[in-house]
């Protein structure tokens, strides 16, 4: 993994220089979150249902959106790097291919964690809901989920023809998955066709795991979710290793 830290650090600096990148992916979501909290601060206290939502559903929604955002931007960056010949140029150096890709995953993970920490701090400050969350377990669940979703993103990045299609294809693929994942509507309340769809979508298991661990359920109750996410990671990584194109 020669050069991994150099490359990762460099990509972090480059990302921060992107005028829309830093503000769009980190500052904006946090600001919206803070503004919402201020606007409905009083109502959360008085409404039991709202409190339940803010205490469990909203955090998982936020986490999933941040993870998806990271995946979509990863897909786009890989596509841009491929189209511009940057990947090809990097490949003609002693950098190993997986080093280049790992560096990008690390950058995405880092900024996702940063956004989440800001969100958590803002939630504590602006949302009058006491959270009793097993943070360590949740972090582990989040890491597993994110890496699993990133591997799907990688497979997409390996297949998209051009940078122009990367973002739309990624969105078309991921947002419907998110729609039936139980994040907005409980899976049991979906029409039966969508329920079937839901059960074959990896994001459903991600949401189930994150939500379960967040509300304090045991890992043993979610072994199925973990198995699916690990399997997805293994399959997507193996497939993208075969079909990944450098130019």
């Amino acid at each position, binding site marked *: 993994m*020669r*050069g991994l830290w*150099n*490359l990762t650090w*460099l*990509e972090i*600096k*480059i990302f921060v*220089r*992107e005028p829309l990148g830093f503000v769009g992916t980190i500052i904006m979501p946090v600001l919206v979150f803070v503004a919402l909290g201020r606007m409905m601060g009083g109502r959360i206290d008085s409404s039991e249902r709202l409190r339940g939502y803010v205490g469990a559903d909203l955090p998982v929604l936020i986490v999933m959106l941040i993870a998806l955002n990271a995946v979509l931007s990863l897909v786009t960056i890989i596509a841009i*790097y491929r189209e*511009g*010949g*940057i990947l*090809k*140029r990097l*490949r*003609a*150096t*002693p*950098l190993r291919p997986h080093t280049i890709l790992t560096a990008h995953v690390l950058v995405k993970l880092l900024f996702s964690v940063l956004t989440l920490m800001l969100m958590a701090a803002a939630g504590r400050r602006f949302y009058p809901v006491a959270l009793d969350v097993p943070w360590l377990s949740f972090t582990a669940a989040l890491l597993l989920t994110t890496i699993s979703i990133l591997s799907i993103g990688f497979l997409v990045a390996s297949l998209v023809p051009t940078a122009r299609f990367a973002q739309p294809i990624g969105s078309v693929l991921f947002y419907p998955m998110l729609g039936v994942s139980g994040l907005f509507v409980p899976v049991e309340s979906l029409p039966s066709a969508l329920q079937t769809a839901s059960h074959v979508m990896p994001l459903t298991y991600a949401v189930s795991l994150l939500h379960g661990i967040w509300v304090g359920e045991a890992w043993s109750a979610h072994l199925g979710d973990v198995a699916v996410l690990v399997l997805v990671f293994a399959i997507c990584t193996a497939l993208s290793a075969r079909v990944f194109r450098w130019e």
Partner: protein
Amino acid sequence: MSAPAAIQAQGLRKRYGATLAVDGVSFDVQDGEIFGLIGPNGAGKTTTMECVEGVRTPDEGRITVLGLDPVRDAYRLQLRVGVQLQEAQLQKRIKVREAVALWASLYRASVDPRQLLEQLGLGDKRDAWFMTLSGGQKQRLFIALALINDPELVFLDELTTGLDPQARRAIWDLVRGIRARGKTVFLTTHLMEEAERLCDRVAIIDHGRIVDIDSPAGLVRRHCPERTVLVTTADLEAEARLRLVPHVIVTRGDAGVVAIRGEADDLMTGVIQCLADHRIRVTDFRTVMPTLEDVFLKLTGHSVRG
């Protein structure tokens, strides 16, 4: 015994779908020379070069680069060669010095990055983003990246394409500098003037096949030996007198221009001698030498710009 060849390529073939991009290409690049692969776009230059670099695997053929197999020993070879790829880009917002520092960190040996940038005239661009560089500056940065590990062999693919003549000349000087430090240079170009001025030897490639290999002067001598002297004179006797020079064809053009064509080495001496002997007053005297461009046209039947 001659010096060992830096590159030996034997019978390379590479097919893309139905097209045979490289069709049985063989050549050697000697240690310490500038060797050019020349031909029109789509002739198979870049594919051949990328096979030699190990970026691409040929369907058939044997390649040895610095005694190594470019595919099997890719990582060992990468430490000893420098590569500039056609139409490469870097991250838009990477700074010049960051790119050079990253590259330097990847190799065991590296030259002083600051000094290298100075040499390539990028000293005052160290903190500039890649996207703000001009075409010539980008090319010079890519040359810097190709040289950062003090390589024994440098690959340059169409390195002056899209540059203005001035930037082009500056890059030619840089490439000669690389050779002067004892390195071997393997380059491709579709610019015949570039090949003629820069290369010790060239291989002409067309439709995936090598047509001939020699020094530019050698190719011209063998394939287009005919030179032309153009004399402008008001002397009406001139044409008849010049016909007396041995082994020449003389034709009369417009505005008193007489063209004397011949293949002999002493063509010019003969013409000058004749003009002096007969006291023919000339107002203009020009020689037209065939170029690599003419050789290319003769050998392939079409212009390199095709």
